């Protein structure tokens, strides 16, 4: 940038062609390479059914990962997502089994639950200025605890006996459809939800002013405020989105599992964060982004699936996953460094 007289050219992205390409596409290429390896060496990997099954398995973690991404965009971090999803699983089970509510009532209630959780996180962080990690950690414990209370720590399935009373509401067909149904007889419904969420959020974050506002708030809160952005509202919304997405993930999870499984949500914190973090590095954007998270989630799913199909012993899978991630990091960041 320069003033009128001598517009001294500012070099942008500065680096040479090849290096830039390695930076941008190195990680993607690595991912593609791994995928190709699985596809070529294992015919069953590349079957339509298997591809669908990979996508289906990543949709829950993907949706929750999208939520973390949004909270990361505003410079925060939502530790409560896994617990939120787990709480939602139990909430759905309670409504379905203990109250015998119909699906049309359960889903909105569950989403509302997620919304309230997000709003509470947001209020703590925005209004009371509690550090984000601390507020969402508190929420994590509360949710983890609350979900156990109604059933006294038991999993909830039809026929649950509690203090002598038997509950025989069921996971209705309609509810199970959310996790197990297929559109056009082929595409599992969760994939559709995941894709819809990813596309909608991508559009919002990349193409609209709200997206710019979210990133602005994450970039420099005070400057964003002074520029007239309603930073409190924006952050609040981000945590609400994160909460709603976590509960959406929880609903799908409940429908997939088919009962109120205590602790179903716990693994999702780390997995969703992993997807979002891998997404950081994808395309060398170096900031949380929807496309990256989506790719990250799908890739982690591909790894798991491919390694299982290739019959890698389960105890080597974490290792391989870690090594691939490390290689990816070295590739992306090492090249940047060594120019």
């Amino acid at each position, binding site marked *: 940038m320069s003033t009128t007289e001598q517009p001294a050219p500012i070099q942008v992205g500065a680096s040479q062609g090849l290096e830039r390409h390695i930076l941008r596409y190195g990680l993607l290429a690595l991912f593609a390479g791994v995928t190709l390896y699985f596809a070529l060496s294992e015919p*069953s990997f590349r*079957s339509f*059914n*298997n591809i669908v*099954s990979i996508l*289906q*398995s990543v949709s*829950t973690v993907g949706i929750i990962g999208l939520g973390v991404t949004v909270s990361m965009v505003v410079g925060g971090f939502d530790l409560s997502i896994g617990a939120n999803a787990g709480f939602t699983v139990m909430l759905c089970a309670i409504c379905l089994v203990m109250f015998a509510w119909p699906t049309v009532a359960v889903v909105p209630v569950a989403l509302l639950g997620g919304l309230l959780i997000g709003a509470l996180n947001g209020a703590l962080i925005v209004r009371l200025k509690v550090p984000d990690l601390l507020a969402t950690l508190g929420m994590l414990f509360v949710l983890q605890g609350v979900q156990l209370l109604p*059933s*006294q*720590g*038991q*999993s909830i*399935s039809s026929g649950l006996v509690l203090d002598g009373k038997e509950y025989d509401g069921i*996971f209705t067909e309609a509810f199970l459809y959310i996790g*197990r149904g297929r559109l056009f007889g082929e595409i599992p419904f969760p994939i559709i939800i995941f894709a819809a969420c990813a596309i909608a959020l991508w559009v919002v974050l990349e193409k609209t002013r709200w997206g710019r506002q979210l990133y602005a708030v994450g970039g420099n809160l005070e400057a964003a405020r002074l520029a007239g952005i309603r930073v409190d509202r924006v952050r609040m919304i981000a945590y609400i989105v994160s909460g709603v997405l976590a509960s959406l993930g929880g609903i799908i*999870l409940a429908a*997939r*599992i*088919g*009962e109120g*499984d*205590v*602790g*179903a949500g716990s*693994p999702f914190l780390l997995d969703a964060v992993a997807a979002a973090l891998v997404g950081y590095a994808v395309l060398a954007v170096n900031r949380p982004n929807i496309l990256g998270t989506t790719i990250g989630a799908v890739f982690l799913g591909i790894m798991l*699936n491919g390694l*299982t*199909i290739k*019959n890698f*012993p*389960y*105890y080597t899978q974490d290792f391989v996953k870690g090594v691939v991630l490390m290689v990816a990091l070295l590739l992306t960041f090492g090249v940047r460094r060594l120019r």
Partner: protein
Amino acid sequence: DNTGGSSSESESEATPAATQEAAKLPAKFETGVKVALVRQLASGDFFQQWLLGAQEQAKALNVDLRISDARNNNDQQATDLQRAIDQKPDAIIVDHGLAATVSPLIDKAVEAGIPVVAFDVETENPEVISIQQSDEDAGKRIGEELVKGIGGSGDVGYVYVAGFAPLDRRNRGWDEVKQANAGVKQVAKFGKVSDSTANDTQEQANAVITANPDLKAVLAPYDEFAKGVVNALEQANKTDVKVYGADISTPDIGVMTKEGSPWVATIATDPANVGRVAVRAAALKVNGDAIDREVLIPPSIITQDFLKENSIKTLEDLRAKLPDLNTQDTATADWIPKS
């Protein structure tokens, strides 16, 4: 009470038999049979021993065992099972799992003509071979052993976490025992299941021991629970409190036979044996042989004294001294190599 048979006899039996009969494998097995093993969880001594047994039997039968581990993520297990069905193996073994999650998929597998063996899964499908270690019975028997051990009455601690099928069943057995023995007072109920169950349970056991100085015994019907309690007792120097556990593994034997160990008895099946039975059942199904729909594997009570008297140090030793553990005649046929 259990007593070992004569040692020479059992030793020869326990040694994996040579493959003298391998030549007689049915044609199908000569070319190799693919069996998918879909597991809910793989970590922990029990599950590892289980797998070793299954693998050993699979090898003897020239079965290609394809293993997936859902790491206690039930959604993942559903995905794994779906993928297994898509791959059309010759048989599927489902190792643990929530009924609501896996039953519909098991039905699907049956529809697709794939024989299914379910271990510790509640399923109603008549086509499925259901293998169970009679857990309710185990709970009852170790409970009775405890009552005997404390002379019919006294303060007792109980380690239990709801929501895990085998634990729930063992719990039912213990409930019966409590009802039948009014003198037994359950003064504390605690426990925690995590990636580090033993350690987390130990922390809680510390508190329980302190709070209940008159504690006579603790029922910890899962070996990880038992280890946690034992560690807590040893470190509190309260080795007069008796621990009754469930399950057995080499490390468990080490803990039980240690000088002054409070762990006086455990009720167990040999996990490796169970794994073998599961694979044999699958093989029978593949070959079209007749087999009962329900296969029950009775557990044995193993006392500390028994271990000490026979200087048993490892699971291998135990198998030699207690051939009951190896239910060779369960689910077998002439063409199946003995082990």
